[in-house]
C-alpha cells in the first residue's frame, strides 16, 4: 500500500509539471495528517486546493498527505463519509482533526453545509446506519432513525408496502378522504418516491423540519421535506463493494382462530344470546371435536393450510466507484428478491402461485470536469420490478380476507370427491384461491435521469458560479393476469331429527372451473419533468463568510387520472452569513406558484430567518470543562402547502336528481348548482418557530434538542357547520382552518472506547402534539363533543361502563338507541344525562388514530476488537387504534370466524369478568360501533433489529487482498411489547402480515 502512495506522489508531481500554472515558482509542499474525532487516521480523504482546481490528492493509510501549494491558498479536505473542512495554508505542517461539526448536511437544492454552520433543524441518517436494515423499500429503513421523523409500518408485502411518513407529526387535515399530509421527498433535489431506490444507492437521508430549512421549498415544504442524497464517486482509485444477504421471513404475528369445536360452541352461545335455539346439537359438537367425519364436520386451520412458516429472500448488490482524472463515478447494481409465505403454491404445472417480488435497481452517477471550471453531472437510475401473486380478483388481501374470516368449521379444504370445499355463503376457499385461481404479475419500470451543468464564473465575479439542470423521470406499472375461477362443492349432512345420526348427504356443485383468462392492464404511470437554473456566490473577508444562492425551477408531475397533474414554478434564494466561525445567520426565501390554486392566490412568498451562536467558541467559555461544543439555534419563518382539492374556486354545475315525464315515465336528467365557489381560496401557511441546542460533552456524549411551535393557517375546511342551510346549496369550503403543533425532539449519543472495547448508545425521542384551533365546526350541543380543541383525528366514541346483566337493568338504564338491547350488550355512560344514549354521548377516547404523539428509539452497540453486537429498538406512545376487523376483533358477524381475542366475551356465567360484549350473529349496532372497548392503545415497543457482526481484522483482510469484509447475522422486527397482542399493532386490518426476518450477510470491499 505504501508503494501505491509513492506512486501517487509521483503522479501528482507529474500533473503539476503538466499544468502550466502561473506562479508555480512560489509553490511549496505542504504536508499534513487528517484524523477523525477518535484520533484515528482518515484514509482516502480527498485533498484539494481551491485555487488549483483539477489537482486532487488522497490521504494514505496513515491519514497523511503532501500537497504543493502556496501560502494563503485555501486547502479543502473531503472525507469519504462526507466530512469537510477548509483552511488557509499557513504552516507547513497541517494536522486536522475532523469531528461531527465537519459533517456535511444537505440543506436542499443540492447544497450542503457543515454541521457547525447549520442554523436550521435538520436531522440526518447516513448509509452506514441505513444498511443495517434488511428491507427492499428504503423507506422501511427509517423507523426511529431521525428525530422528528415518524415512520409507521403498514401491512403488505415487503416489495409493495410503503410506510406512512410524517415530519413532526401532522398539523393539517383534509376534507373527507382528501389527503394533504404528504411530505415532499426529493432524491438529489428532484421529487421522487423513496421506494424507487434501493438502499445501496443512498448516501444519506435528511429531514428538514423548521422554516429555515423549508422556506426554500415554498408551497411544498410545510409538511416537511425528506432529502435523499445518492452516492457519488469519491476516493482514490477503483473501489468495489459487494454485498450479499440471505434472509428468512416469518409472519410477525398471526391471529389464532378457534377450532371447529370452539367455533361451533361460540355460534351456539351467540344463538342463545340472541334468544334463539343453539345451532349445533351436542352430537354435532362432538363430531367437530373428535374429527370423526372430517368432510361433513371439518376442522380446518386455514392459516396452517394456506401459509408456510417461512419465506425467504436474497439481496445482492455490487457497486463501483472511482475518481479518475476528471471523471468521478458511482455505479451500482442491486437485486432484491423475496418469496412469500403462501403454502400450497406448487399445484399447477407451468407456474407457481407463490406471492413473490423482485426488484432490480441500477444507477450511474457521473461527475465530469469538462474544463477546470465546468462540471457536468449525469445521474442515470432506474428500476425494474416484478411481483407475482395468485390470480385473485383484487390482490393478496382477497386471500387473507378468506383466511381470516372463514370459520374453521365451514367446509373442508377438499371434499371426498376431490373438489374444492365451499358453500353458497363461502365461495372463497383460501387454498383454492391460492392454488386454483391462476396467477397475476405486476411490473414496474422506472427511469430517472438528471443532467446538471455547473460553471464557475470567477472571471466575472469572484466566487460566482452558475448552473442549469434538467431532470426527467418516468414510471409505469402494468398488470398481466392469468386468472381463472374454480368450481367448489358444498356437502351438507342430512340428519335424523331425533338422533342426529347422519342419514345422507346432499352434494351441490357451485361455481364453474374456467381456463386461464389473460388480461393486461396499465395500472398507473407518472412522469415528471424539472428544469431550472441557479446562481451561487460565495465570498469572504476578514473573518466573515458570505454565501448566497438563487434558484429558478419549473416542474411538472403528471400522474394517472384527472386532476392529477401538478405544476410548480419556484424562485428560491438563500443567504448564509457567518462571522468568526461563531455567529451564523441564514435568510432564506422563496416565491412559489402552483397550478392547483386559482390565479391570484396561487403564488406565495415564504421567508425565514435563522440564527446560530456557537457559544463554546467564545473565549469566556473555555473555562467550562463539561462542554466540548455548545451551539444555540433559533429560527422563524413560513412554509406552505398547496395540497388542496382542485377547481373548488369555481361554482360548477353537477348532475342532480332526475325526474320522470311523459306517458312512459321517461327518466330525464337533472342538473343542479354544485358547491358554491370557494373564494378566496389559498394554500396553507405554516408559521414555524424552532429553538435548538447542539452540544457535545465530556468527550463522549452528543446531544441535540429542538423545541418547536408551529401554527398552520389556511387549512381548507367545510363551512357547513357555520352556514345556515336556508342557503339551499352546499356552502363553499373555506381556507380558515387553524392547527397548532408543538413539541420537541431529543437526540442523544453516548460513545466511548476502552481499549479494544467500544460501545455506543443512541437515543431519540420525538413529541408532537397538535390541536385544532379553528375548523368552522358544526354546532355541537355539548362541550365534550367538540372537535375543535382536540387532536387531529382524535378518536371519539361512547364510553362503555360494562355489560347489561338482565332485562331489569336494561329497563332501568337510559335508552340506548342503536339496536334492541339484550343482556350482555355494552352499556354506555349517559354523558349528558338526557336518559338517552345516542351520538351526543360520544366523548374523546384515547388519542389520535393517525399518528402517535411520542415516537422514540434506542440503539445499543458493543464492539470488542472485530466482533460487535447491536440492538435497535423503536416505540410509540399516545397512539390509538380502532379494532374493527371482522373475524379478528369482531367475531361471527357477516358469517365470519372467531379468534381467541374473543375469549373474554360476555356470557351469563362470566358476567363479572368479561371484557367484551356478548357474542351475536347479528351486526349489532349497539356493540359494534366506536366506543371505549374497540379503541385500543396502539403504543408499542419493538425490537426493530438485532445484529451480530464480525468486521474482519485488517490482518486477514490484507491477506485476502481486500479492503474490508464484514459478516453478519441480523434479525428484524423480532418482538413487540404492546397491548394488541394478537396482531401487529401497526397493521390491525386484513393485510399480508408484517414479517420478522433473519438475515445472514457478507459485505466485501476491495
Amino acid at each position, binding site marked *: 500500500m505504501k508503494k501505491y502512495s509513492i506512486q501517487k506522489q509521483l503522479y501528482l508531481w507529474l500533473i503539476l509539471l503538466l499544468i502550466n500554472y502561473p506562479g508555480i515558482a512560489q509553490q511549496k509542499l505542504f504536508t499534513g495528517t487528517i484524523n477523525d474525532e477518535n484520533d484515528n487516521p482518515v484514509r482516502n480523504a480527498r485533498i484539494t486546493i481551491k485555487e488549483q482546481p483539477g489537482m486532487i490528492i488522497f490521504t494514505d493509510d496513515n491519514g497523511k498527505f503532501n500537497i504543493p501549494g502556496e501560502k494563503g491558498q485555501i486547502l479543502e479536505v473531503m472525507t469519504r463519509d462526507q466530512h469537510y473542512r477548509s483552511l488557509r495554508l499557513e504552516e507547513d505542517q497541517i494536522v486536522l482533526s475532523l469531528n461531527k461539526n465537519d459533517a456535511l448536511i444537505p440543506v436542499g437544492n443540492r447544497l450542503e453545509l457543515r454541521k457547525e454552520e447549520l442554523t436550521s433543524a435538520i436531522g440526518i441518517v447516513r448509509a452506514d446506519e441505513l444498511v443495517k436494515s434488511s428491507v427492499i423499500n428504503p423507506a422501511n429503513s427509517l423507523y426511529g432513525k431521525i428525530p422528528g421523523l415518524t415512520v409507521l409500518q403498514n401491512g403488505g408485502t415487503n416489495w409493495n408496502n410503503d410506510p406512512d411518513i410524517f415530519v413532526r407529526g401532522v398539523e393539517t387535515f383534509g376534507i373527507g378522504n382528501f389527503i394533504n399530509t404528504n411530505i415532499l421527498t426529493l432524491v438529489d433535489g428532484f421529487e421522487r418516491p423513496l421506494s424507487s431506490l434501493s438502499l445501496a444507492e443512498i448516501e444519506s437521508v435528511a429531514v428538514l423540519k423548521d422554516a429555515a430549512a423549508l422556506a426554500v421549498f415554498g408551497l411544498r415544504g410545510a409538511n416537511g421535506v425528506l432529502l435523499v442524497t445518492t452516492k457519488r464517486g469519491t476516493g482514490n482509485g477503483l473501489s468495489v463493494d459487494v454485498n450479499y444477504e440471505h434472509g428468512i421471513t416469518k409472519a410477525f404475528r398471526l391471529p389464532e382462530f378457534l377450532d371447529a369445536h370452539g367455533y361451533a360452541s361460540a355460534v351456539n352461545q351467540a344463538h342463545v344470546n340472541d334468544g334463539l335455539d343453539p345451532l349445533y346439537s351436542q352430537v354435532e359438537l362432538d363430531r367437530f371435536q373428535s374429527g370423526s367425519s372430517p368432510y361433513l364436520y371439518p376442522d380446518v386451520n386455514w392459516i396452517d393450510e394456506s401459509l408456510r412458516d417461512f419465506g425467504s429472500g436474497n439481496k445482492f448488490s455490487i457497486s463501483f466507484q472511482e475518481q479518475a482524472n476528471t471523471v468521478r463515478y458511482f455505479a451500482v447494481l442491486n437485486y432484491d428478491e423475496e418469496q412469500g409465505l403462501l403454502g400450497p403454491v406448487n399445484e399447477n404445472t407451468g407456474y407457481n402461485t407463490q406471492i413473490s417480488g423482485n426488484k432490480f435497481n441500477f444507477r450511474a452517477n457521473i461527475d465530469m470536469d469538462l474544463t477546470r471550471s465546468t462540471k457536468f453531472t449525469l445521474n442515470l437510475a432506474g428500476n425494474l420490478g416484478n411481483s407475482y401473486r395468485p390470480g385473485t380478483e383484487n390482490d393478496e388481501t382477497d386471500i387473507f380476507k378468506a383466511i381470516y374470516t372463514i370459520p374453521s368449521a365451514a367446509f373442508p379444504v377438499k371434499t371426498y370427491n376431490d373438489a374444492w370445499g365451499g358453500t353458497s355463503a363461502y365461495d372463497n376457499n383460501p387454498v383454492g384461491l391460492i392454488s386454483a385461481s391462476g396467477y397475476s404479475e405486476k411490473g414496474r419500470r422506472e427511469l430517472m435521469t438528471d443532467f446538471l451543468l455547473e460553471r464557475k464564473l470567477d472571471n466575472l465575479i469572484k466566487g460566482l458560479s452558475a448552473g442549469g439542470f434538467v431532470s426527467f423521470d418516468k414510471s409505469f406499472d402494468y398488470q398481466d393476469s392469468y386468472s381463472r375461477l374454480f368450481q367448489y362443492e358444498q356437502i351438507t349432512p342430512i340428519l335424523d331429527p331425533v338422533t342426529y345420526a347422519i342419514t345422507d348427504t346432499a352434494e351441490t356443485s357451485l361455481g364453474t372451473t374456467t381456463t386461464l383468462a389473460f388480461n393486461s392492464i396499465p395500472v398507473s404511470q407518472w412522469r415528471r419533468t424539472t428544469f431550472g437554473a441557479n446562481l451561487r456566490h460565495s465570498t469572504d473577508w476578514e473573518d466573515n463568510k458570505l454565501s448566497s444562492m438563487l434558484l429558478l425551477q419549473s416542474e411538472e408531475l403528471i400522474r394517472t387520472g384527472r386532476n392529477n397533474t401538478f405544476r410548480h414554478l419556484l424562485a428560491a434564494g438563500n443567504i448564509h452569513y457567518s462571522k468568526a466561525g461563531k455567529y451564523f445567520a441564514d435568510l432564506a426565501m422563496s416565491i412559489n406558484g402552483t397550478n392547483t390554486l386559482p390565479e391570484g392566490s396561487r403564488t406565495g412568498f415564504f421567508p425565514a430567518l435563522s440564527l446560530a451562536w456557537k457559544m463554546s467558541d467564545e473565549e469566556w467559555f473555555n473555562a467550562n470543562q463539561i462542554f466540548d461544543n455548545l451551539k444555540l439555534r433559533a429560527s422563524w419563518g413560513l412554509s406552505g402547502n398547496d395540497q388542496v382539492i382542485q377547481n373548488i374556486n369555481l361554482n360548477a354545475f353537477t348532475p342532480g336528481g*332526475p325526474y320522470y315525464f*311523459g306517458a312512459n315515465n321517461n327518466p330525464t336528467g337533472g342538473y343542479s348548482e354544485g358547491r358554491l365557489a370557494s373564494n378566496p381560496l389559498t394554500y396553507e401557511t405554516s408559521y414555524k418557530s424552532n429553538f435548538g441546542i447542539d452540544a457535545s460533552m465530556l468527550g463522549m456524549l452528543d446531544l441535540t434538542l429542538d423545541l418547536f411551535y408551529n401554527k398552520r393557517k389556511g387549512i381548507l375546511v367545510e363551512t357547513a357547520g357555520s352556514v*345556515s342551510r*336556508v342557503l339551499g346549496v352546499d356552502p363553499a369550503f373555506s381556507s380558515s382552518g387553524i392547527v397548532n403543533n408543538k413539541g420537541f425532539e431529543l437526540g442523544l449519543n453516548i460513545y466511548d472506547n476502552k481499549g479494544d472495547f467500544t460501545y455506543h448508545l443512541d437515543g431519540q425521542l420525538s413529541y408532537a402534539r397538535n390541536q385544532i384551533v379553528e375548523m368552522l365546526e358544526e354546532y355541537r350541543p355539548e362541550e365534550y363533543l367538540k372537535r375543535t380543541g382536540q387532536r387531529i383525528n382524535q378518536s371519539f366514541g361512547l364510553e362503555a361502563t360494562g355489560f347489561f346483566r338482565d332485562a331489569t337493568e336494561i329497563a332501568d338504564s337510559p335508552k340506548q338507541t342503536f339496536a334492541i338491547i339484550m343482556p350482555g350488550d355494552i352499556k354506555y355512560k349517559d354523558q349528558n344525562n338526557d336518559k338517552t344514549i345516542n351520538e351526543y354521548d360520544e366523548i374523546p377516547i384515547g388519542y389520535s388514530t393517525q399518528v402517535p404523539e411520542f415516537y422514540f428509539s434506542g440503539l445499543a452497540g458493543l464492539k470488542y476488537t472485530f466482533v460487535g453486537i447491536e440492538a435497535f429498538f423503536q416505540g410509540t406512545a399516545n397512539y390509538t387504534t380502532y379494532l374493527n376487523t371482522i373475524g379478528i376483533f369482531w367475531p361471527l358477524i357477516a358469517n365470519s370466524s372467531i379468534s381467541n381475542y374473543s375469549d373474554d366475551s360476555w356470557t351469563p356465567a362470566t358476567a363479572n369478568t368479561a371484557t367484551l360484549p356478548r357474542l351475536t350473529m347479528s351486526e349489532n349496532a349497539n356493540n359494534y360501533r366506536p366506543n371505549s372497548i374497540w379503541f385500543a392503545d396502539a403504543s408499542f415497543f419493538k425490537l426493530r433489529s438485532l445484529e451480530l457482526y464480525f468486521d474482519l481484522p485488517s490482518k486477514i483482510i490484507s491477506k485476502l487482498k481486500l479492503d474490508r469484509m464484514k459478516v453478519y447475522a441480523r434479525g428484524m422486527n423480532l418482538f413487540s411489547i404492546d397491548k394488541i397482542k394478537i396482531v401487529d399493532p401497526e397493521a390491525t386490518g386484513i393485510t399480508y402480515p408484517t414479517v420478522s426476518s433473519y438475515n445472514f450477510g457478507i459485505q466485501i470491499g476491495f
Partner: protein
Amino acid sequence: MKLIFFKINDMYKNRFLRFQFLLDRSEIKNPKILLMRTVKLFLITIVLITTLWSCEFLDYNELDQYNKDQMLMEFSRVKSLLTNVYSYLPTDFSSVNGAMRASASDDAEHVWEVSDIQKFNDGSWSPLTILDDQWNNMYSGIRIANFFLKETDGLTFDLIKYNVDYPELMKQFAYYPYEARFLRAFYYFELIKRYGSVPLITTLLTQEEADKVTPSPFNTIVDFIVSECDTASKYLPVGYSGLPASETGRATKGAAMALKARTLLYAASPFHNPTPAVNDPKWIAAAKASKELIDLLGSNYLPLEDYSKIVNNLTSKELIFERRQGEDRAFEEANTAIGFEGGNTGTCPTQNLVDAYEMKATGLGIKEVGSGYNATDPYATSGPTARDPRLAMTILYNGALWKSTQTVQTWYGGLNAPPALNATKTGYYLKKYMIESISLNPENPSTAIHVWVLFRYGEILLNYAEAMNEVYGPEGLGSAPLDNLTALQAVNIVRARPGVEMPPFPTGMSQNAFRDKLRNERRVELAFEDHRFWDIRRWKIGPFTTNIRGIDLTRDPVTKEITYTLKVVETRVWDDKMYLYPIPQSELFINNNLEQNPGWF
C-alpha cells in the same frame, strides 16, 4: 400550452448543442468566449423561466364540469335545471329514514323499535334530534327554483334559433318559469306545514345573507303561495298531452289550483285559525279555491277512479299532480310482511285505522248502534257484516290474499305472525301502495314504477266538503261559485266511487256530526297518502291519537277457529309543541334571527 412545451423542448435541444459546442477543445482555450456563452446560456434560462412564469404554465387544470354560462347556453341544460327542481317533490315512501311518516300518526306503527320514526312517538324528538329534515331539503329545491327563475329569464337560445323544433322548444320554455314558481310554492307549503313561519327566500342568497335571514309569519307565506299559484294557474296548461313533447307529469293549471286549495284549507283549520268568525273568510276562501278547481275539472273527472287504481297509476283518472319515481322495489322491500319471500315487515297499520272503516251495508261506524259489525268476523268483504271495501284495498289482515297465492296468517304461530322475528306488532300489514307483482326473490327480483299521489280529485272534494261544512253546514250553500254543491253532495261523490259505493252520508246531520263523520271519511279515503299526520296537526287532535291499538289472533289448533283479542300496542307521548316541528338547533346557533317554535328547546 402544448406549443410552449414544444418550444421548451426545442430550447433544450439547442442547449444540448451548446453543451456539445462547449466540449470543443478549441473553444476551451478562449475562456472569454466560453464565459460569454455560459452567461448567455444562463440568461436565456432565466428569461425562459420568467416568460413561463408570466404565461399560462400554472393555468393548467382538468375541470370537466359546466359553469353557469355553459349551463345557460343550451336549452337541454336549462331544462335539466328545472328537472332538478321537480326532483325535490316529496313522497311518503319510506320518507323518514326508511319508515313511512304514517307510522308517526295513529294510522300505523313501524315494526322496528329503533327506527328513527319512533322518536316522533316516544318524545325523544328534539331540536337536536331532527326528524324528517325538510328544512334542508326544501330550501335546496327552493334554491334551484330561484336560480332557474333568476338566471333563465329572457333566454332566447340563439344557437338553435333556426332549428326546426325551435318554436316548439320555446313554447315549452314559456311554461317553465310558472312550473318553477308552482314548485317553489309547493316547497314553501311543505315548510310551513312543518315549521309554521320560515324565512321566505326568493333570491339567490350568499352565504353571509343566508346566516341573517328573518322568518316570515305563516300567513305571509300562505299569501305568497296563493299569489304564486294564482299566477301559475293563469299561465300553465290544463294538461300536457296535446302539447309539444307531451311531457305529462309537469305542473298543470289544476296542480297550482289544488295547491292553493290545500294551502287555504290548512290556513283555515283550527290550528292556524283557532277562533273562526261567522262566515269565516278563511274557510270561505278555502271553499272557493276548491270549488274553482272542481268547476275547472268538472265532469271530466267523474265518475271517480276505481279505488284500487288510484295509486301507482300514471293514468289514474282522478290524478291532478303526482310525484313520479323510476322503477324500483325499495318500498316493497321495506314493507313486505315477514313470511313472504324477501319480506321483513315495516309499516303495521293500527287497529285504530281498521276501526275507522265503516260498515258497507249501513254506512255506520262499527261502534254505532245497528251498524251490523261482527267482532268474530271483523274483516268480512261481503254479506251484511261486510266492511267498507277500502279496508281490503288498504290493509292486509288475517285471511287476506297476497301475491294471489298466499293467505296472510297473523294468528300466533302463523306464517306472518309472532313469534317470528319482525312480525307485525298490530296484527296488520300494509297493502296500499305495495305493488303485488314485484318479486323479491333474490335470484330473480323485479321492479316497477311507483307513483305517489300529491293531489287527486277525491281530496279536493273532501277539502271542499270540509270548508263548506265549517261555514254553511252540511247542506248549506253560499254565493257563487259556492252556490251549487253542498258539503254533503261533495262527500257523497267520493263515497259513491266505483268499487267503493258506500251508502251516502245521511241528510239532516248537524255541523258537528258531519265534521266527525267527514274527518273519518277523509282518514279512510286518504289513508297512507300522507294526510293523517298533517290532519292531526291542523285539527289539533294530537292528544286523542296517542293510544295505539292492535289485535292478537289465536287459532285453535283443532277447530282452526280464530279468536281476536284487542290490545294496546303503544301509548305515545304527545305534547302540544309537536303541532309544529322544531327548527334544527344548529340553524338557531348560526342565525340569531330565527326563533324556535313554542315549547321546543
